[in-house]
């Protein structure tokens, strides 16, 4: 009898006092389980160490009209600095609160995700060859130019070349030996490129 009472007491203590697990119902759009980047770009001069208001972010960063667009930083100041967008779209998830937002500019699209009520930049997607990366790569650059700019420390699958730096990725889809699509990505659990 005493053992059973002890067992109940222990179980109740465990229920109330164990390490707090995040409630998945509040967590779906709020988790930001970033993984550490496993590779550095071969040429460190090609990567930006970018400080943000809230935290240091090491990774790839896009730049447009003098405005730096790092990944996984608060979106609002960047969107404001970029000026008026040509279009805007927002997508609610199947169930959870918060919106993924898509800002369209001339030559690229900037996507955000919500975390604790704040929007963070999840990706930048090039839409045409009017914009380029900081390292000068654009839609239409050759594979040789890409490797010259970023090095050989990439993974490749089905023509998709992926460079990882810190909490970011730069993916370049190569078709017929030229870049067909270029995307900057923040490394976030559940983020579909």
């Amino acid at each position, binding site marked *: 009898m005493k053992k059973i009472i002890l067992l109940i007491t222990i179980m109740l203590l465990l229920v109330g006092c164990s390490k707090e697990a995040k409630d*998945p119902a509040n967590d779906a759009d709020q988790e930001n389980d970033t993984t550490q980047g496993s590779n550095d770009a071969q040429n460190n001069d090609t990567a930006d160490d970018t400080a943000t208001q809230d935290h240091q972010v090491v990774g790839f960063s896009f730049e447009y009209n003098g405005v730096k667009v790092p990944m996984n930083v608060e979106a609002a100041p960047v969107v404001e600095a970029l000026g008026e967008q040509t279009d805007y779209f927002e*997508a609610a998830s*199947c*169930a959870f609160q918060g919106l993924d937002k898509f800002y369209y500019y001339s030559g690229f699209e900037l996507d955000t995700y919500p975390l604790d009520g704040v929007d963070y930049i999840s990706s930048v997607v090039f839409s045409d060859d009017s914009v380029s990366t900081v390292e000068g790569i654009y839609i239409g650059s050759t594979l040789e130019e890409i490797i010259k700019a970023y090095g050989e420390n990439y993974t490749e699958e089905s023509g998709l070349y992926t460079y990882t730096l810190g909490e970011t990725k730069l993916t370049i889809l190569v078709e017929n030996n030229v870049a067909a699509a270029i995307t900057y990505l923040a490394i976030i659990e559940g983020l579909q490129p």
Partner: protein
Amino acid sequence: MKKKILINIAALCFAILILFLLQKLFMPKYISEIREGSLIAEYYDEVKDHDVMFIGDCEVYENFSPITLWEKYGITSYIRGSAQQLIWQSYYLLEETLKYEKPKVVVFNVLSMKYNEPQKEAYNRLTLDGMKLSKSKINDIKTSMMEDESFISYIFPLIRYHARWSKLTGEDFKYMFEKDKVSHNGFLMRTDVKPVTVIPKGKKLADYQFGENSYDYLDRMTKLCKDNNIELILIKAPSTYPYWYDEWDTQMVNYAEKNDLTYINFLDLLEEVGIDFSKDTYDGGLHLNLYGAEKLSEYFGKTLSEDFGVSDNRNDSSTAKIWDEKVDSYYAMEEDQQRELVEYGYLKSYGALVQITEEEE
């Protein structure tokens, strides 16, 4: 000695009872927020006699109205849908459903073919926590779990939700043992309108081929239906986002042809169905609202009735009695939602809070 054993047994039963009550209390109730979490469990209270079963993600539970199918064609149907339901979850839900009833037709939305691996625990929970314990659920859990999840936490959800003790609300106590229904035979109603303004273009992909895991479960679903003499209809709902690539569509067309199935891409039939994206969606084209869902259901009901011979049950008095109550409840909710739209400008009690807040900002 005997007395001692009995006391110990009684104490053990008491301990189990306490844990059972705590689990009931700590589980999220999904009534005023994230109503989608209630969908799977609601099925078990139904009279299980449906000629058509829909399975899949939010593109089924937001886009088809079983009440319209009943009113226009006498078709009895249920939507076993859940948020971001993955294809293996659809398979195991179907497998489980067939233990309760044998519909004539199963309708599966193919968007989930794009997810070859488990995605997010939060979505897993919305599907799996509502399932009753069964072999299908066990297999579903094993297939769905992310790396950092534990199987035992799905069998005893108290392990997962115990930390909610600090977030309990009146709703948790009120709905500990019984909950109000949030859906209409699995359909989640939204009467608000947010027109389509932008249709995002699809991003270029390196590989458009659906994964092996997805095809494996589609094969299993096809076989399960064939073995049970059930017509399986594959559909792509008329949602503008996520983008549905031509390359994906071709795969489904080919699969259906190879397996002697019907595949309907409603994105190609918008004009025929009469979908007006300035009025028929509540979130800019991702999902239809009530009016869009009724149009789509009226169109699809004709196909079910004429091409698949699904019966008109309106002359069956016992069935009609059950559905008359459902119809009343449906229109009562529509009226209530319309009232909230007038009073608050948005669906305050129906999970629309954040979107409207964003717009107001």
